[in-house]
């Protein structure tokens, strides 16, 4: 019901475009530093742990690059990063909309004759769905760089072997799988958080409660969706 109203035609396209760009900046661009930091270190840790656990002599050294690439593309960048972003973006959205609810700003929009759900939520959903795939590609790239930096600096492998591993058994569909997951998770984070924010009742304490619920529920829904998407796409 809520989503049906959210996806109504915006009152003014010009204002919608302006809000969309603003949401892309708030949800996407401003998340890039944390995404970059997490991706670099996670990539480095994946590479180091793989190298440290390579005890069997029959396993070739390029396996490190192969595992770093696969785990980054398949799981780390789309899923783990989305779980982290559910905390950052989800709480931000729920508290922003929740505060607007308890301070009657949403009532003000409604009495003006403005569809508050479309005005507030639609640009956030579209912005996140458009920018999450870009963010995930960015994260995949940085994770691989992080892995390479860790291996080179520790002397556990060399560039040629690592790059050979990255290119081994590469399936382009894995990127598609990661992008599909990122779009679904973006939608989940924004819609769940907006729902909890929009239906906040009470005062400041309740805004905090909505924000926590938004993060918890988005994370659970992401995990469930991840399970079903993996079954549907990879198996």
């Amino acid at each position, binding site marked *: 019901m809520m989503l049906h109203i959210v996806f109504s035609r915006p009152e003014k396209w010009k204002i919608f475009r302006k809000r969309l760009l603003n949401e892309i900046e708030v949800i996407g661009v401003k998340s890039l530093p944390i995404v970059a930091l997490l991706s670099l270190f996670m990539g480095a840790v994946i590479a180091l742990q793989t190298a440290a656990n390579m005890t069997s002599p029959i396993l070739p050294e390029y396996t490190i690059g192969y595992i770093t690439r696969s785990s980054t593309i398949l799981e780390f960048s789309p899923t783990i990063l989305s779980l982290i972003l559910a905390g950052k973006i989800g709480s931000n959205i729920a508290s922003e909309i929740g505060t607007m609810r308890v301070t009657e700003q949403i009532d003000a929009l409604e*009495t*003006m004759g403005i569809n508050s759900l479309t005005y507030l939520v639609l640009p956030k959903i579209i912005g996140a769905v458009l920018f999450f795939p870009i963010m995930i590609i960015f994260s995949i790239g940085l994770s691989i760089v992080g892995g390479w930096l860790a291996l080179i600096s520790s002397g556990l492998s060399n560039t040629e072997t690592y790059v050979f591993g990255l290119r081994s058994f590469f399936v382009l569909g894995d990127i598609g799988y990661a992008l599909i997951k990122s779009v679904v998770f973006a939608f989940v984070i924004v819609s769940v958080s907006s729902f909890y924010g929009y239906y906040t009742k009470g005062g400041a304490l309740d805004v905090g409660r909505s924000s926590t619920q938004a993060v918890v529920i988005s994370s659970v829904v992401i995990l469930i969706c991840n399970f079903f998407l993996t079954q549907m796409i990879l198996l």
Partner: protein
Amino acid sequence: MIEVKNINKSFGSNQVLFDLSAKFETGKVNMIIGQSGQGKSVLAKCVVGLHEPDSGSILYDERNFTQLEGDARREIRKEIGMLFQGSALFDSMTVEENIMFPLSMLTKMTKKEMLDRANFCLDKVNLSGKNKLLPAECSGGMQKRIGIARAIAMKPKYLFCDEPNSGLDPKTSIVIDNLIREITYEFGITTVVITHDMNSVIEIGDNIIFIHQGQNWWNGDKNSIITTENKEINDFVYASEFMKDIKSLLKSKMKTLRP
């Protein structure tokens, strides 16, 4: 004119409004008064469409608001201006942007026309030149006046004010009251004010509706509220000894003025 006919409203098992009917007249300041928890705000929220009544109808100049949906209902809402208790200004926007917001969303006015209108509204509420301030930089009284400026920006036919004087000092309250009265008379709009402030009621109330136990308990004007013998309204208006003394003074004053 806004007509409320036989409205009932419940929240779960708690019925708040009981078969309530009322008329809010055009070009007058209509006051809704009553104790806390008697259903004043629920009534106002039903009238503006923020709550759906369980039964009954609301007529805006004979247009049945309760039977309308979607765009048709939104068209009537565009004729409504509302001042909220906490002002409900958009805190990320400047004063000017707040006032221009409904214009930019709902009209095809150019930026210059919107700016002119915003300046006109700011001038009306004596806040000329405060365009670039953020709501957080304004005092409570200023925020109320900005709220009024935003409410009148769309040239509304109906103006609702939810406790416009709450949290304000007596002097600023009088400024807000005078502003509401001035705007009502100047533009001939139907104004509905929900208030606890008896000073406002006596000062600007042309048509007063006393809500008690979710019903329209008493109806009258600012003169008849002084002379009424209705027990519930006297208990509400003249709750303190001081107000009781004021009442007897006012009554004797009115007797001497009568031929």
